[in-house]
């Protein structure tokens, strides 16, 4: 009808809130974060905070999440909500391991990717062709993927040597690369524990040490996704299906085709994440090894505002805190208390500057509480350590202004020729 779509000339000039982060700003924020981390490390003596191992561990833990998130991004950019990522991740682990132990890790990677893609394709058929609620389909795929792989294990891994109905035989590892001189040099530098310098060295070192080739591929997929989706005609068409499929259709774009492609790629990426988990992270398929990473990937994508860079940051944050807690959580997470306290002081100062005194006082009180907690204890109970990544994510989300903007037609049903 003439009223619904016509009359919405929304906000003319850009809202200040939507101001884009420019490179100088990003660099400044990164630098500030680094200084803060360095400071906390020096004060608390938790040298693992920015060590090579910590960063490289974070990377390992972040990649399956990031790949799932990337998968979610592809799908949702084309307008299909994909809560089936977890299931596609499971398919990736199973198929990756199944092919991997028999025909080598790279075959495993490819087959894992295809397994995930299969899940994606199923999701596409259900949501695009049958126009079923995307969440229902995703949930069903999660159930199906788990049931299907566990069922098949009884006929495959259970009969293989070194495997069982819950676990695959070991898969040959994928080559690791370490940049010889640089990596050692950075590691030495990091171990000097100098303010800032060592931290930088640790972070860079973590990014160039013991890198599996698949890790490199996975990292490259983030900018590649950005490039494809935002710099190519294909990507433009795909995104238009998530923003306004009817408009896309009216310009001759075959919306079904792009949705199918996007959701299948989405599954393939999650499948790759699964393959990474089975082949690189652990070297075997293990029932239940995805452990909800698909959902975390989805959360990372929302966290990152449906953008590859933001998603990567979300996955990175998660991987980082996860790695912190798992590598000697009691001490590391204890140091985080200090970080939180400092951040809260800064927040309080900012609120004072903005003349919002009530939030300022609240922030200050909490800050004092964290300082006390930090000062009066040596360790954080292991149970709370375990919650660190989740609490951090919640805190970051709650403290940062929420300017989320999902693709406009995300999750909405679409049928060809029925646009108004």
């Amino acid at each position: 009808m003439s009223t619904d779509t016509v009359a919405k000339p929304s906000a003319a000039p850009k809202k200040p809130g939507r101001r884009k982060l420019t490179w100088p700003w990003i660099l400044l924020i990164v630098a500030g974060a680094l200084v803060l981390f360095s400071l906390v490390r020096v004060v608390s003596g938790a040298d693992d905070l920015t060590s090579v191992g910590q960063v490289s561990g974070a990377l390992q833990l972040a990649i399956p999440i990031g790949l799932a998130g990337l998968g979610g991004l592809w799908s949702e950019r084309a307008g299909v909500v994909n809560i089936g990522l977890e299931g596609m991740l499971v398919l990736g682990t199973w198929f990756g391991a199944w092919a991997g132990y028999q025909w080598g890790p790279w075959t495993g990677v490819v087959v894992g990717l295809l397994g995930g893609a299969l899940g994606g394709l199923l999701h596409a058929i259900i949501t695009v062709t049958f126009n079923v609620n995307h969440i229902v389909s995703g949930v069903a795929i999660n159930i199906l993927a788990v049931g299907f792989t566990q069922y098949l294990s009884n006929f495959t891994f259970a009969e293989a040597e070194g495997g069982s109905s819950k676990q695959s035989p070991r898969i040959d590892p994928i080559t690791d690369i370490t940049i010889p001189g640089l990596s050692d040099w950075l590691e030495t530098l990091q171990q000097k524990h100098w303010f800032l310098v060592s931290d930088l060295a640790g972070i860079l070192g973590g990014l160039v040490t013991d890198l599996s080739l698949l890790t490199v591929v996975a990292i490259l997929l983030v900018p590649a996704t950005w490039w494809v989706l935002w710099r190519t005609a294909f990507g433009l068409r795909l995104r238009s299906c998530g923003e306004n499929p009817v408009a896309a259709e009216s310009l001759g774009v075959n919306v079904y085709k792009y949705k199918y492609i996007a959701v299948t790629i989405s599954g393939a990426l999650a499948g790759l994440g699964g393959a990474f988990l089975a082949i690189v992270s652990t070297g075997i398929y293990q029932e239940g090894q995805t452990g909800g990473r698909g959902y975390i990937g989805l959360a990372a994508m929302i966290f990152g505002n449906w953008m590859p860079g933001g998603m990567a940051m979300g996955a990175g944050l998660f991987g980082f805190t996860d790695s912190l807690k798992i590598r000697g959580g009691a001490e590391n997470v204890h140091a985080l208390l200090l970080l939180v306290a400092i951040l809260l002081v800064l927040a309080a100062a900012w609120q004072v500057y903005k003349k919002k005194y009530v939030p300022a006082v609240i922030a200050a009180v909490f800050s004092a509480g964290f300082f006390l907690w930090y000062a009066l204890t040596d360790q954080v109970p292991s149970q709370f350590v375990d919650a660190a990544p989740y609490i951090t994510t919640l805190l970051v989300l709650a403290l940062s202004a929420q300017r989320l903007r999902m693709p406009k037609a995300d999750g909405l049903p679409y049928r060809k020729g029925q646009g108004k």
Partner: protein
Amino acid sequence: GKSSNDSGSGSDSKAAKAAIAYDIGGRGDQSFNDAAYAGLKKAEDELDVKGAEAEPSAGEGDADKVQRLTSLARAGNNPVIGVGFAYAPAIKKVAEQFPDTTFGIIDDTSVTGKNVANLVFNEEQGSYLAGVAAAKASKSGTVGFIGGVEVPLIKKFEAGYVQGVKDTNPKAKVLTQYLTQPPNFDGFAKPDLGKAAAQGQLDKGADVIYAAAGLAGSGAIEAASKAGKWSIGVDSDQYNQAGLKAYKDSILTSVTKDVSDSVFNLIKSVKDGKPQTGEIRYGLATDGVGLADSNPKYKSMTDLIAAVDKAKKDIVDGKITVKTTP
């Protein structure tokens, strides 16, 4: 009306029958459940017993366990063994209804009864020996412990290990890390977490890592092996596990827990007409727990072996009491 249990009556009582009901994870976990299965298998082979198994489903409650045990008991199985402490409340209910059937429960002594056999292990004692071995093998004076899920059972492993290390080398430092918190049992299933945790401890200078983390332990073994450091396995002799062939040289030893023998023994006792009852404890004294010595490198460390043997003797003799909580 009719009960599912009525169907299979104990009619063909000629062949002895025995049953085990698995813990979450079920057969194929290459750990606890598989060890129990091995005991049943052995009984099938050696005692001509017909074995039955039943797996739990995810997220089930006590009522389901009661139903499972009841139907296994009604079917004429004797003994019926619940693998894992989760079966305790169910066995308490069922054992009263079937006074003629022997019920076994592994890792629990809280339920008692004339027809209940509590199969328990002194994991802390085995872990103590592991601690002695670790302290002896360590050059850096820092060793690591990785627990899969922070539950009392695994804390027993930690307690014994830490005590063993400290008694051997009071200056040694033990790094402890748990992978997940209950009821999130991912910590037994995610090898990548085990790997990351081990990596963290290695980076902090640990050169022997003991992982009591089920399958996640394989990640720790992998990490230690890649770093050229020692690892200590758990439950079964992991040196001989096919899946860990690539890293076996770095598996110093494993703390074994003879679940399979305990199952076999119980079945045998029932078959022999002298059913075990009450607490059946498997400790160092009975070799129900112990250290494996398959790794030739381990066997060549005479100093270490001497220390372990002495500790073992002291524990058996009661000169050392090993704590069960850290």
